[in-house]
């Protein structure tokens, strides 16, 4: 993965939010980090999505989830991409592809709850690991 691929994930470069009429900041683009292998990440995502009643299509490291919106009146779709940032460190980018942003937010919340076993959360102890040392965010 090159630096520019990561840079394009920035919220500041996602001008589609300008067209959002909602007042509260509802992220349409969300991501998490995982230390599991890419295979495990993808198969976990597929399993969880399936259990949520969504159709799953995966190609390379890109997965598309499709289903009906919460009120069954419209479409819902999300696209998930897995990027290898460093050995055994993966960035999983999830974004809404179709449907209501509020639905997407609800979906993302319950999606992440079910994926807790693969989502890596920095804690005091594991922050001292070689790959991730605290670095000041001075940007």
């Amino acid at each position, binding site marked *: *993965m*090159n*630096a*520019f*691929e*990561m*840079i*394009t*994930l*920035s*919220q*500041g*470069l*996602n*001008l*589609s*939010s*300008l*067209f*959002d*009429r*909602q*007042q*509260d*900041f*509802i992220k349409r683009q969300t*991501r998490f*980090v995982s230390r599991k292998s890419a295979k495990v990440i993808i198969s976990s995502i597929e399993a969880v999505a399936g259990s949520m009643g969504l159709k799953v299509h995966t190609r390379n490291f890109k997965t598309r989830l499709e289903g009906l919106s919460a009120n069954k009146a419209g479409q819902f779709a999300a696209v998930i991409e897995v990027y290898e*940032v*460093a050995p055994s460190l993966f*960035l999983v980018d999830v974004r809404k592809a179709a449907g209501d942003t509020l639905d997407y937010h609800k979906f993302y919340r319950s999606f992440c709850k079910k994926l807790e076993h693969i989502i890596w959360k*920095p804690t005091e102890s594991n*922050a001292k690991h*070689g*790959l*991730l*040392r*605290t*670095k000041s*965010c*001075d*940007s």
Partner: protein
Amino acid sequence: MGCFHSTQRRQFPGYEDPVTLASQTAFSVSEVEALFELYKSISGSLVDDGLINKEEFQLALFKNRKKENLFANRIFDLFDVKHKGSIDFGDFVRSLNVFHPNASQEDKIDFSFKLYDLHGTGFIGRQDVKQMLIALLCESDMKLADDTIEIILDKTFLEADVNQDGKIDRDEWQNFVSKNPSLLKIMTLPYLRDITTTFPSFVFNSEVDEIAT
């Protein structure tokens, strides 16, 4: 005689009429009118001066007027074509034009090059990329060790910096982007095709003289 457009020009400095803007961009007249509805809501959100200032831009993008972001700053600076610290309606439409699905690849490549050339040197330097990468990691609450960052930069420059002079010039960027087309996905907003349904404006806005309403 108060024609609609001269009233708009008083309230919205830099206002240009939709017919002119449509003729110079990929937008139709009704799409420019719809963009005006969007522009009005953003430019009037904090200060009612008919212009979009930095805070109003941040508010529109992040729903948080105080949120500072390196990339949003770059976009703002590029949209602020005349470097006056604010975005007027003409700037808004012409800048968004580059993001239209029908805009040329060349324009999109130009814009993205200027976007990442943080200090306007005419090159994308290694320090620029490092600064942007760190900004992205902060945004994602991810921190990587210095050496990991250097490895990512090395890999990137190995591929992009063909003459290995430590910086990416306009031709190298064009070449790099043609090999990695997903890098330009941020430069297209499919929403612009549906703008008239998301921001309906009433057609008679542009046809009826102000006096008659």
